[in-house]
């Protein structure tokens, strides 16, 4: 059904899109994220100009390394993007991740409060630019990062954070196979892919029609400010040039995971259930919190044990098999981050999936820190090495996609008719495990994940990168960046 809706104007321009929109780079196991502040806008634009030719387009499948760039709104201002253009961004982008209301709805409070963040904190240095560097192996990545770093310094950029990732395999730090369910763009990728997860391009890529047939908010440039015609035309038909087209909004968050805390809690809770706290009971309970077994098999398909044959299973729904959550609890992590056909209107129907599909995210996160085996975590040998996930997601409507998922599905204690049950993995709270008769209830699951930093960024199309590099002269009215706050203010 979805494929038939593609028309010529909906066909995505892969050569202008950054490849991150199409690929998670499973083959490029090493990655590093570099966060910069712009100190000298002129030099930074030169750096960008050189970078534009090296950014990996979606039209190429890289074999050895890939390079991507994202810019925050303060960064765009600093590069000289005039207010009139910046105003085209949605409010969430312009205000950034750390307003009081946004912290409240994202759950960035207490230990996760932005004033404690390592980067992106309100009083810390402004994050302006982010490089996402990928290599097939560490030995290929390291020289590339070193080279980029040198060029960045010459380019008037000051390093705010260098975030190294760790290849810990397909499972995240709690030990669960991750990243299985991903929305696919209409008309791209495997044609056999599950139709439930196929979205119109505009849900993930700016400048295209979304599931409502509309175009998400994005910055536009008046034709006289782009005399060279670097930017694509506005697909909506205005005379403006589209700075957003083929770009996306990138959410970056450092989520620290308390792996010893997680397994000790699960071990303890499994004991209290009167079971022997053997490995099997622990894994069964932890899998109830997640909604998949460590190997990836979804509980709704394999309720009693892990099943390697279902490791990547994603073609399933909830309502017909498990409306009460006796297999996969209603509050389980994967059932709330992607409820499929569980929710109103009309659970179990295509209508339910269509509405849920207005709230999908393309995830591109990477783990950091050394893996901690469960036995070591339980032994309690005081392993306090930081570890966690650099959460990255792409979407075009932050309030309807990322923020909605975070507020209404992940953090709401009332998700799916529940009473006081936020996401047990991301937020903690009480957690019910339905059975055939009396449910089991974990009264207070602690919080295992702490936010350590974050920013909303614009992932520009490649022509848009070139345009940003050309800014100084065109229409920015003198020395750019004067109106913006200096780094560190």
């Amino acid at each position, binding site marked *: 059904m979805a494929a038939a809706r593609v028309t010529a104007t909906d066909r995505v321009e892969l050569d202008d899109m950054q490849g991150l929109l199409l690929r998670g780079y499973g083959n490029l196991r090493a990655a590093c994220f570099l966060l910069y502040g712009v100190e000298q806008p002129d030099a930074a634009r030169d750096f960008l100009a050189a970078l534009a030719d090296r950014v990996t387009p979606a039209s190429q499948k890289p074999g050895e390394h890939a390079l991507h760039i994202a810019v925050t709104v303060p960064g765009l201002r600093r590069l000289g993007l005039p207010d009139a253009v910046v105003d085209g961004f949605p*409010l969430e982008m*312009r*205000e950034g991740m750390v*307003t*009081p*209301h946004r912290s*409240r*709805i994202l759950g960035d409070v207490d230990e996760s409060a932005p004033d404690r963040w390592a980067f992106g904190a309100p009083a810390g240095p402004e994050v302006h630019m982010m490089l996402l560097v990928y290599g097939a192996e560490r030995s290929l990545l390291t020289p590339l990062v070193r080279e980029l770093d040198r060029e960045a310094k010459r380019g008037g950029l000051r390093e705010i954070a260098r975030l190294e990732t760790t290849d810990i395999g397909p499972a995240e730090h709690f030990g669960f196979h991750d990243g299985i369910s991903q929305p696919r763009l209409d008309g791209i990728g495997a044609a056999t892919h599950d139709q439930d997860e196929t979205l119109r391009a505009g849900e993930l890529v700016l400048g295209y029609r979304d599931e*409502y047939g*509309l175009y*998400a*908010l994005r910055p536009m440039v008046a034709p006289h400010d782009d005399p060279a015609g670097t930017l694509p035309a506005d697909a909506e038909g205005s005379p403006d040039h589209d700075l957003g087209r083929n770009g996306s909004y990138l959410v970056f968050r450092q989520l620290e995971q308390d792996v010893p805390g997680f397994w000790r809690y699960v071990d303890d809770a499994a004991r209290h259930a*009167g079971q022997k706290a053997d490995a099997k009971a622990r894994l069964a309970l932890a899998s109830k919190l997640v909604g998949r077994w460590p190997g990836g098999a979804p509980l709704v398909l394999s309720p009693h044990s892990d099943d390697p044959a279902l490791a990547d299973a994603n073609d399933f729904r909830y309502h017909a098999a498990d409306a*009460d959550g006796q297999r996969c609890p209603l509050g389980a992590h994967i059932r709330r981050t992607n409820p499929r056909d569980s929710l*109103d*209107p009309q659970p179990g129907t295509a209508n339910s999936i269509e*509405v849920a599909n*207005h709230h999908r995210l393309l995830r591109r996160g990477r783990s950091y820190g050394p893996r901690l085996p469960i036995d070591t975590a339980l032994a309690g040998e005081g392993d306090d090495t930081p570890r966690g996930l650099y959460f990255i997601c792409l979407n075009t409507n932050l*309030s*309807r996609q990322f*923020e*909605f998922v975070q*507020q*209404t599905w992940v953090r*709401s*204690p*009332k998700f799916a*008719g529940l*009473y006081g049950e936020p996401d047990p993995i991301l937020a903690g709270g009480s957690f019910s495990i*339905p*059975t*055939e*008769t*009396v*449910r*089991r*209830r974990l*009264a207070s699951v602690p919080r295992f994940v702490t936010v350590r930093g974050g920013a909303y960024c614009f992932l520009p199309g490649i022509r848009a990168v070139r345009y940003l590099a050309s800014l100084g002269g065109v229409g920015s009215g003198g020395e750019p960046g004067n109106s913006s706050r200096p780094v560190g203010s």
Partner: protein
Amino acid sequence: MPHQVALTVVAPIRPGGRDALERALHAAGPGGSADATVPFARMTGVHFARLFLLRADVSGAGDPLPERLILMSDVDAPLDRHVSELCDIGGPTLDAILRHCEGYPDTPDPASRRAYLERYAVSAATAYINTVGRGLDQVLLEGRLRETLEHYLDQHRDELAGRPALEIRERIQEFVAADPTLRPALGRPAPPDLRFRIGEAIHLVLVPAGLLALSPILLIALPLGVIVLRIHEGRDREDRRRPDDAWVDMLASLEDHSIQNPFVAAGPLKPGPFRRTLTTTVLWIADYAVRHVFNHANLAGVKTIHFARWVFLDDKRRVVFASNYDGSVESYMDDFIDKVAWGLNATFSNGVGYPKTRWLFFGGARNERVFKDVLRRHQQPVQVWYSAYPDLTATNVNQNERLRAGLSGSMSAKEAAAWLQLV
């Protein structure tokens, strides 16, 4: 159990009194002093209540529409008792707010307060009640029932879990019977009083009967109305301005402090007799629908609204919509767009600037961005808001009702197992 009624008071503001009124509202709102807060909790049967300053506006024809103070409450009948308690229990704190309103007595007493409220009371064109006839006592009893049963099951799970569902149900019934505060839950709640039910039954039948009698005229008028509608829709201008950042931030600062939120949107109607007649007709039909069709837990697919109402103001040149809903304003607006766009279109498209509709029901809210911007621009901050059960969503309240209902009557083993899934 009583049925529910909606009180709306729309009071004019004393010349120059606006700022003082706003200060008084803030003092009575969240973060304000306790003695300035109207003690709705001490009055009988108040589910929700609010006081807010409605901003000045301009009518569709360009005339100024003044600022007003609006008091709204959703309460158990009789309304008379509620008004008395407002003037008596709530008197002194109401005075601190209402004394900035035009014509409010200088030395108020319960009788003169009452006369003032009655003078400025208006009735809602449409008043939605999540579940008609479910009184506050019932909501609170069933909420307590659920909480107590949660603890009971936590403590006795090991001995109960392996037993047949029917036996577990019996044990639960015994437990409830042993608790004098919960024992009433073993019986079914009484229906609303007979006079109310007879009145509703007559209304249910009489309206269609009247329409049937008028059908020869309506059959001629309807096609004409559709033609005029299409002409109007062709001339409609949608207002694509984005809301002011500071306005959105101010609204957001008031939102999401609990799992419920109050919503108010107000705006002028498009000018001319056609839109005025159409709005009156649509809201009249909507009122019939919410009284007789959408009167239990489900407003055409939306299950997150506790109470809602549409009220005409300023000689039908302006409409106020107010509701008490669960979750975020983003999810609320998404519900509007994804589940009841047709209903929003039929009512709100008569307002100036609404995204363009086709045949009254289509388009409109489906234009997501313009719709959300229009709603945000017309949204009004609610300075004073009260909820009697701020920790319960409408879905929770309805599930609690089903939990209680399952305590009485006979059940098969399968029904008992399904019932146990409720807690």
